[in-house]
């Protein structure tokens, strides 16, 4: 006589598949498809985020100094920038250095500028810095904005620029991407949960008689519900596990396409599949979603009076 909960769960799931094979298979296919979409969205999102973050890292803030800036002023500004842990690479660019850079950049466009002796007067010295990589891309604008506001009122500062419009658009895009992804994944997961709940509900209806008998013999609610919750958890876990495999397969195909047909974009080497940890978390999430939707489905199937409700005649 086998009494272990795992054996009971295996028998329970075996019966569900035997009695409703088509429904169980359709449910599994829909769930695998749903979790594959989730995996795909996360993969695309993480790669897009990675690329955008690389762009974000190259964003520089320029603090232009006015003509009257004293050495003390410059020292204070430098100290201020170095003491802020959210910032990195504060660097003083002298007028001469700025002029050299300017001339190098403009040489091919305006060769006459190379001989303009007065140009030095118009190019200011500046501090250049970027925001730390530890700051999330979506939060970089705020860091730049607050830092710029503080710098603007410091003596010796003429102007602070960091491509505000571009950064605003960039930040808004990152935020939209985050929220869009969260909303999209939530919708997909909610639909998947409903599909799982439907499969569990069918399983409950199929076992109405068994549930009544179990109540009759003094089985506790937990004892009756656990196989259903286990069934939901296994369905969710299996679906998300298969979906990770399918997502990875699709990723390899797409990556191969980028490396072959769209080699000029040079994206083949830069795109990556989800981290192993994220993929594992997604499988765990599938297990939890399955268990939760099953629990929601069975939490009231046997409150001690269920058999009375269905047998009252």
């Amino acid at each position, binding site marked *: *006589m*086998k*009494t272990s909960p795992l054996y009971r769960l295996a028998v329970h799931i075996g*019966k569900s598949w035997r009695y409703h094979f088509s429904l169980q298979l359709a449910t599994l296919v829909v769930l695998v498809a749903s979790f594959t979409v989730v995996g795909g969205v996360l993969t695309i999102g993480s790669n897009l985020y990675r690329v955008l973050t690389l762009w974000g890292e190259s964003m520089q803030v320029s603090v232009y100094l006015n003509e009257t800036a004293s050495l003390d002023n410059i020292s204070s500004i430098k100290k201020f920038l170095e003491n802020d842990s959210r910032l990195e690479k504060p660097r003083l660019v002298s007028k001469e250095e700025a002029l050299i850079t300017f001339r190098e950049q403009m040489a091919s466009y305006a060769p006459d500028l190379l001989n303009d002796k007065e140009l030095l007067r118009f190019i200011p010295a500046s501090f250049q810095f970027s925001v730390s990589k530890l700051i999330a891309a979506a939060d970089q604008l705020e860091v730049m904005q607050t830092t710029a506001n503080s710098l603007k009122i410091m003596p010796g500062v003429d102007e602070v620029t960091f491509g505000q419009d571009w950064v605003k658009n960039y930040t808004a895009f990152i935020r939209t991407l985050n929220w869009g992804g969260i909303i999209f994944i939530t919708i997909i997961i909610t639909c998947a949960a409903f599909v799982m709940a439907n499969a569990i509900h069918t399983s409950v209806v199929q076992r109405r*008689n*068994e549930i*009544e*008998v*179990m*109540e*009759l*013999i*003094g*089985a*506790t*609610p937990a*004892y009756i519900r656990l196989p259903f919750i286990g069934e939901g958890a296994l369905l969710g876990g299996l679906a998300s596990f298969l979906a990770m495999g399918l997502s990875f397969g699709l990723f390899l195909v797409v990556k191969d396409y980028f490396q072959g047909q769209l080699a000029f974009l040079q994206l083949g080497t830069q795109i990556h599949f989800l981290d192993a940890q994220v993929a594992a978390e997604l499988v765990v999430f599938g297990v939890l979603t399955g268990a939760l939707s099953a629990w929601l489905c069975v939490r009231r199937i046997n*409150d*001690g*009076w269920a*058999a*009375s409700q269905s*047998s*009252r*005649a």
Partner: protein
Amino acid sequence: MIQFSHVYKTYTGPIHALKNIELSIDKGEFVFLTGPSGAGKTTLFKMLSAFDKPTSGAVRVSGFDLNLITAQEIPQFRRRIGVIFQDFKLLRDRCVFENVALPLLARGDRAHQITRRVAEMLEQVGLSEKARQLPDFISGGEQQRTAIARALIHQPGVLIADEPTGNLDPKLSEEIMDLLERVCAQGTTVVVATHDHEMVKRRSKRTIQISDGSIVGDSR
């Protein structure tokens, strides 16, 4: 062992299923509950087995006040009683042995204890040879004996049988009643609902008659 005090049960309609039921059954008693269909026997049985609550009045069974019983306590209460139905309520996809073992499995008994106890019980009801048969492959009498074995396996103080011979021929019905009498002789309180008046007369046991939701006779 069983106590009903001024019990009323009204369903929406209103349908007065039970009206002022006053009833007391002692430990080890064998009681027939008779009455026509719709008299209230099944409602009374649902009260006895905690499948329904009275609209008013008090019901006490095996030390449990069924008016105050909580959902968490119901499984504990059900382990103190055994219930048998006319339609047996066996699980069709499990063999006789597994059906009888269910209460012990639900209670969390160990495998070897379950095996031993079920074998004893099947011996007692004469079904040892049918242990591995599915319910659909045994006779109605054997199915009812399986249901009785399942109701008794956890040694309940009260056995409640709702028309246990309703689907059986006279010979099998007598066999089942003999079995229930033997169970009673071992100290279990047995309450049997039936409308087989001939059988009730032959058995000479305490008989409570119900009609239109009220007790109209008690041979005590």
